[in-house]
């Protein structure tokens, strides 16, 4: 099966949704693709125990009202197919989509850094815990420790509390002085999440980071460094958020340039490749407000409505300053690069410990010798960790971008010839 669209948008988070809405008025035929069951991205996830904010509900309703926008949920982009084509996979089949223009709104994923015990059941990412909570994971009465860096820790703590968990500690690695400066600047960026950043939370500690997750079969406690001290806390869950990594694989495969490990774009949200735009967290982390604005600008630009795009530049600039403040305030302490012990697994797919990687010349050599990154996640987790730990550049993406059925890849044959003997 093959379909053609004027505009394809990959990712239906805040950026992708607003791009689709901005472009829709032009009448262009638009395809919005996302691998989740419903639109919303990382921040607006549905689940049995979730009530989405009004903004999310409104955007979804608007999206549903656009006759010229086809939303393909639970559909993954698994490879490029020809010069202006994508290979997609949904639950039933693989199929191809050709586009004239493309907007990448692929978002970001969590940076997971290895430390002793991080593979114990009960340990997850901070965003990972939120997703589990939305999915209905019962945590009522459980003791939770949240560690890492950035406002996401507080969002995670708020969700955990809403679900009845007892948050024992929120360990933020940034120093108090930095946090105070960041908080003092917040009124410039009114927004629900950012106001919730309450430094007065009794569980909140600055200059603190995780050293080890403790436990035998599953998590029983956590060892933290708080200022100059080592403390141990008992808990049932540990959620660590060390920051986000932009999803750039598709952009790289298309030949788009990167800047600071995110997709490089100009004022129109255009990438270095003709007709390909990018918006939201895949161009750098800055929160959902910035993602919404960038999405709109990209959507307008992609249908040549330049005046409307340009009208949003000042607002975008305001939120870019916020992104900059986030970046500088929550820059990772280099000490976090040295948490892993020799036997701490870095690659969970292939069980590769830290010691098997240290000392290699680069990612490629380490991978060949140790199988690191050769498993099902294809280095999405350990490759990003190795980048932080060792400074190794990220591996060039190879198809498929995510595991894909062989039957899907069969669709890549342009001529669809019957199988022929060689």
């Amino acid at each position, binding site marked *: 099966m093959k379909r053609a669209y004027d505009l394809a948008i990959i990712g239906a988070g805040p950026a992708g949704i607003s791009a689709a809405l901005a472009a829709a008025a032009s009448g262009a035929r638009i395809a919005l693709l996302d691998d989740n069951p419903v639109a919303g991205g990382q921040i607006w996830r549905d689940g049995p125990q979730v009530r989405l904010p009004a903004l999310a509900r409104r955007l979804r309703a608007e999206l549903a009202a656009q006759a010229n926008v086809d939303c393909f949920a639970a559909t993954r982009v698994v*490879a*490029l*197919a*020809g010069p202006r084509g994508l*290979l997609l996979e949904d639950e039933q089949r693989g199929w191809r989509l050709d586009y004239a223009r493309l907007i990448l709104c692929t978002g970001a994923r969590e940076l997971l850094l290895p430390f002793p015990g991080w593979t114990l059941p009960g340990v997850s990412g901070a965003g990972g815990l939120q997703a589990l909570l939305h999915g209905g994971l019962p945590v009522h009465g459980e003791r939770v420790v949240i560690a890492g860096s950035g406002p996401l820790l507080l969002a995670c703590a708020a969700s955990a509390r809403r679900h009845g968990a007892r948050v024992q500690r929120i360990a933020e690695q940034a120093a108090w002085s930095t946090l105070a400066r960041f908080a003092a600047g917040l009124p410039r960026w009114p927004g629900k999440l950012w106001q919730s950043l309450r430094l007065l939370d009794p569980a909140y500690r600055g200059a603190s980071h995780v050293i080890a997750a403790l436990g035998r079969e599953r998590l029983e406690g956590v060892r933290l460094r708080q200022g100059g001290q080592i403390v141990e806390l008992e808990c049932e869950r540990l959620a660590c958020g060390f920051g986000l990594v932009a999803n750039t694989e598709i952009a790289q495969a298309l030949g788009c340039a990167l800047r600071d490990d995110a997709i490089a774009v100009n004022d129109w949200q255009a990438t270095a490749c003709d007709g390909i735009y990018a918006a939201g967290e895949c161009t750098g982390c800055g929160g959902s407000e910035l993602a919404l604005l960038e999405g709109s600008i990209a959507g307008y630009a992609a249908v040549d409505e330049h005046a409307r795009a340009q009208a949003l530049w000042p607002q975008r600039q305001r939120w870019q300053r916020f992104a900059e403040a986030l970046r500088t305030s929550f820059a990772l302490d280099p000490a976090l690069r040295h948490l892993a012990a020799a036997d701490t697994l870095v690659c969970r797919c292939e069980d590769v410990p830290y010691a098997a990687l240290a000392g290699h*010349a*680069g990612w*490629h*050599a380490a991978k*060949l*010798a140790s199988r690191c990154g*050769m*498993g*099902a996640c*294809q280095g999405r987790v350990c490759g990003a960790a190795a980048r932080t730990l060792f400074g190794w550049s990220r591996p060039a993406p*190879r*198809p*498929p971008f995510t*595991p*894909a*059925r*062989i*039957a899907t*890849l*069969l*669709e*890549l*044959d*342009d*001529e669809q*010839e019957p*199988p*022929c*003997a*060689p």
Partner: protein
Amino acid sequence: MNARRCADVIVVGAGIVGAACARALAQRGLEVQVLDDYRGGATAAGMGHLLVLDDNPAELALSAYSLQCWRDWAPRLPAGCAYRNNGTLWLAADAEELALAAAKQQRLSTHGLDCELLGAAALRAAEPALRADLHGALKVGGDGIVYAPNVVDWLLAHEHIRRCRAQVVELDGAAVRLADGRRLAAGAVVLATGIDAGALCPELPLTPKKGQLLITDRYPREIRHTLVELGYVKSAHQATGPSVACNIQPRPTGQLLIGSSRQFGSRDPGIDGTLLARMLKRAVHYVPGLATLNAIRCWSGLRAASPDGQPLLGPHPHRPGLWLALGHEGLGITTAPGSAELLAAQLCDERPPLPVAPFLPQRLLPEAADA
């Protein structure tokens, strides 16, 4: 300019062939300096199928001898080398191919190789995942699989071998010039840079044959042998145009490695989707259940092909001091040990274990080079 003598022999290129040559020379007591700039080559890309091929007597002799070397190495190979003696099944789709299988059995048996003709029922019993209407297969019991990058490390871990990261930019008899301007000299230089040899030695008649591979996620083991269609040989020797053949290899991890394709002239490392799909179609044609398995990665590599398909092993006819170990096409992982013995025997003036004539570089370099 004076060159510093750094070793008895300099080996340029630490792929499987360079590593095996270094090892064979070091075992003869020579001090070996191995130089590689880590750009990577075919060894990291290959399937690691260790198999006897018999398209001509020279190929059969070299691959059969090499497989014996692999079986001798086997007990000493570290676990990371993932050596398995799992055997190859050459699949016969019809009566004509079954006759081909029988002829192949004849040739291999006269060479003393362990092989057995399986009829349709025996094949189904051996590999139930195969499509039911195949006519049979030839089982070659001595074939195996290996993870070559780690074999390189094992081969190079020797007291007489030093390994150094360096790019060679010029060859000068038994000396080399490095990218940083240094010159190193030795009693001999062995060139084992795979397809990139042309940059240093333009007169070499090597052409790239690109191959693409795919690996699946881990699954419960259903396939035990490496499965190759008998059409593979035809595909491998086709002189022009891209070709594909079914080649399915079970890895010890539970993954399946699926090949193979050949494309002439391309040096583009990107994946050709159409050719990938055709290759997978071949594989699914033989093992229908593959269609529902998840693929996790595809990659490509370049085979260095000589005009007659056989490697170049021996002295460069017109550049004294320079020795060649090149042009292993799609069989270099298999034939690395035998190639190394042939090269080392010539370099050390020993009686080689096999006739060397079919592999001598002069067969392809008759004219005096302008170098």
